[in-house]
């Protein structure tokens, strides 16, 4: 980013920076808008611009604590490790999933499964960080998570809606997420206390007129100050304030009472279901990334009872979400993902639980860019190891980015260091891509 970046500072980078600077210098003499447009161009590659035109979005259903692959996407009925549940045929020939997911079985044509994740980290903190960023921690670097990457790659700089919204469910899912070196500009709007984001509602102590008038006065002072000063700190400050009214208006997106009774009934009464409905409202309004965390999958005891309850919620809410997105013509632009920090052990412990397990587990990818009905990779008959098509967290991330039309090999530059969007050596899983 700095002119001193010599490693991967490609020629275009230099050109677009100069373009930005001169245009901004011109812009300050007249309109400020010219500045912001150029800033946008500077920040995003031409390819990312193309993607934005297509309005791709992502909803990540984060299964906090680690869902069992056996009771979801990779059942092993009749095996010692299989547990009590049966496998059922899905709408995709040859693909069977757990009987706890009957609604998704009927909708398998929308969804691809990856059954061969080996992510090697069975610790909640480390696993979460790995599956949030698609790579292991590195000294000296704070990596952005998937939401922040998508906010940057898919968002619009002057967007009237948030770029990245993260919905809480309960303590276990309450990892805020991080925009890392991309900075707070791409940090999630995190709903930690209730269903409405913080600071989007005007205080009762100020009238709407005063609220608007003082903002106009602030803009005037800001423009006066920005004259003859080229700085993307000042530019981003103005941009942030210009987005305020739009974000305040987006409060209604979080209000599901604006939906019909019938629609709310489709998603069901659970908090997770309601948050899925909010997620649909958000992506419909143009929010590029929404994370809905569903907690309590960490079933060290009573794994089967836990999954009977949680899978019912997941199966129902996810199906309703996919149906709704499809009916609105949004599914082909919206990628719906389910995974958490890891899967669960083949061994069933004395408390009828399954423990942390990262060596052979599953994720699902539905909608945008996916080859629906595809099932990639195999675990051995008891699910202890990956038998075929081993995939890393980086491979999963490369697949996600490719599905969204984002080049996984694209690089950011941090200091002098080039950082590819998906981890070094990772490759998209072509078999699940459309």
């Amino acid at each position, binding site marked *: 980013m700095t002119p001193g970046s010599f490693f991967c500072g490609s020629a275009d980078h230099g050109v677009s920076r100069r373009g930005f600077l001169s245009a901004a210098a011109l812009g300050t003499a007249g309109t400020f808008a010219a500045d912001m447009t150029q800033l946008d161009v500077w920040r995003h590659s031409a390819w990312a611009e193309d993607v934005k035109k297509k309005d791709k979005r992502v909803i990540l259903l984060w299964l906090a604590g680690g869902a069992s692959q056996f009771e979801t996407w990779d059942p092993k009925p009749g095996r010692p490790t299989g547990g009590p549940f049966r496998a059922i045929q899905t709408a995709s020939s040859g693909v069977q999933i757990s009987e706890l997911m009957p609604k998704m079985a009927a909708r398998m044509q929308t969804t691809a499964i990856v059954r061969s994740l080996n992510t090697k980290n069975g610790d909640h903190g480390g696993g979460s960080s790995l599956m949030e960023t698609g790579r292991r921690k590195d000294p*000296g670097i704070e990596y952005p998570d998937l939401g922040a990457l998508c906010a940057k790659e898919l968002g619009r700089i002057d967007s009237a809606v948030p770029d990245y919204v993260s919905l809480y469910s309960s303590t276990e899912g309450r990892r805020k997420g991080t925009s890392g070196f991309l900075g707070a500009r791409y940090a999630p709007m995190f709903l930690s206390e209730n269903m409405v984001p913080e600071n989007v509602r005007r205080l009762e102590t100020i009238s709407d007129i005063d609220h608007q008038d003082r903002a106009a006065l602030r803009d005037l002072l800001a423009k006066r100050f920005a004259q003859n000063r080229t700085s993307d700190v000042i530019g981003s400050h103005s941009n942030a304030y210009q987005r305020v009214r739009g974000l305040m208006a987006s409060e209604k997106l979080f209000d599901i009472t604006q939906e019909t009774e019938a629609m709310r009934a489709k998603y069901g009464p659970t908090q997770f279901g309601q948050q899925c409905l909010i997620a649909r409202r958000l992506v419909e309004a143009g929010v590029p990334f929404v994370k809905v965390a569903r907690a309590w999958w960490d079933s060290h005891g009573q794994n089967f009872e836990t999954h009977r309850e949680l899978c019912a919620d997941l199966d129902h809410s996810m199906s309703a979400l996919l149906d709704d997105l499809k009916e609105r013509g949004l599914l082909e632009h919206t990628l719906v993902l389910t995974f958490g920090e890891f899967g669960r052990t083949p061994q069933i412990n004395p408390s009828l639980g399954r423990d942390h397990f990262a060596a052979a587990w599953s994720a699902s990818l539905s909608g945008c860019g996916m080859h629906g009905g595809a099932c990639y990779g195999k675990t051995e008959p008891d699910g202890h190891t990956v038998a075929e098509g081993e995939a890393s967290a980086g491979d999963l991330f490369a697949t996600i980015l490719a599905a969204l039309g984002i080049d996984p090999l694209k690089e950011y530059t941090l200091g002098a260091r080039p950082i590819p969007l998906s981890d070094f050596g990772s490759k998209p899983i072509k078999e699940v891509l459309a």
Partner: protein
Amino acid sequence: MRKTVRLSWTSLWLFSTCFAWLTSLSLAADLPPTDAPIEQVIDQFVNARLMTEKITPAPQADDHNLLRRLSLDLAGRIPTTAEAQAFAASTSPTKRVELVDRLLASPDFPLHQRNELDQLLLAHKPNDGEFRKYLLWATQQNRPWDAMFRDMLVGIETDENQKGALTFVKSRARELDDLTNDTASLFFGVNVSCAKCHDHPLATDWKQDHFYGMTAFFSRTYLTKKNLLAEKQVGEVKFSTKKDGQKQAAFLFLTGATISEPTVERTKEQLKEFDEVVKKQTQDDNASPPEKPGFSPREKLVEVALRAEDNRFFARNCVNRIWAQFFSRGIVDPVDQMHSANAPSHPELLDWLTRDLVAHGYDMKRLIRGIVLSQTYSRSSEWTAGELPSAALYAVAKVKPLTPRQYALSLFIAAINPTQWLAADQPDKWTQRREQLENEANGWANMFEVPGEGFQVAVDEALLFTNNKRIEDEFLRDSGDRLVGYLKTLSDDSAMIDAAFWSVNSRSPRDDERAALKEYLQKHAADRVVALRQIVWALLASPELRVSY
């Protein structure tokens, strides 16, 4: 495996190219004399390059701008109205030097410098009380940088002043990679984990020994159960190479200097006993404090890094990082990329400043004084001559985002009733007041982002300013201790607008700004206090208060 090898090779390449460039350090006679004032030498080299590039730099910043910049850079806050008006009114021909010396001697300076160093050195774990206490003690007495380095790496646990310094190592003791990389980056300007993803054509020229050599200095360091820093008696770093298979790392410094460990024959029983001791230390609350090993690799690292024939990384990095604190970029930039492929923008200047720093015992305050007295430092941030020249030329001042603490402190100062400030000639009371402010600002500072590379203001910040009740309660209330409370006692619009501008922006309003505020007051005449509150909000939420310019 492939990944591991690539990491090492490229890291090595960096080490080694650094080495090539830094050994060519010119201490030639053609540098300006040793006794030349720092500020003159800075201007001489920066201006020479501007001449070569045929660029006329921006004019010098005006008085109010310079005062504001100096206050933020040296005191960590905007000036008070009294300070701003006194400086504007002064006709002394040496008022700038007087101001700089006053600020450097003020209680503000060590507090601010403490905050800067805390952010730099412990960014991953800010606000550690012990470490901040140490840093304040060190900055209050202008402790030399080499002594601080020694305190932080091998300080004495039982020394009241030094024990906090060890937090630097302790907080990283469980992550050998972080400890190695952060030490190399922060003290020597070399990021060893960098270039992880690049196969550089030169990379194959170099060996892995350098990379693991640095790690070897730290590999015996561990923390006891009681959180005391300790070093094992023995321990080797082994690594795999493509060509030669497994190798043992030597204690190899960046300059190529190696430290040899005296050979001591150990029996199996002795080695087993060492293991037992470490085990006890790390598991037992009641274990006695660890014994110092006969050979301490960390101590050796400090020794080699500071000795005259090998101190070029350490000394240059100190100059470069202080320079970057004031100019937002290093003479070598990025600051952790000191190597031959990343030449300094002003190599002779870096050489001269490095020589000067070493000759004056790593006196950071002296270097800082020289930097802020230079014409290079005091240019305007406005550029009207077309395309903006490269930042490496220092033709125009860079707009810098305030750090969270600078911003929080400045908000408090801007929003307080300006007549309540103590006069500058009450230094004793000011110390107390400033420390109180520092504490008040803490909570607010946590709400803002620490600016990093390519920093952009987040929309959350704008939403916070716009709709959070705490902003209204803290900064916009009309009680007698706040700016709004003072402004409402002024019946004359012009005087009121002047007072608001001096408080927040440390200057008089320009004609168009005054007109805009007057118009606002007229339009909102129905409730003057409400109108004043909105005016103050608009000033506080403007970019002018958000940045140093």
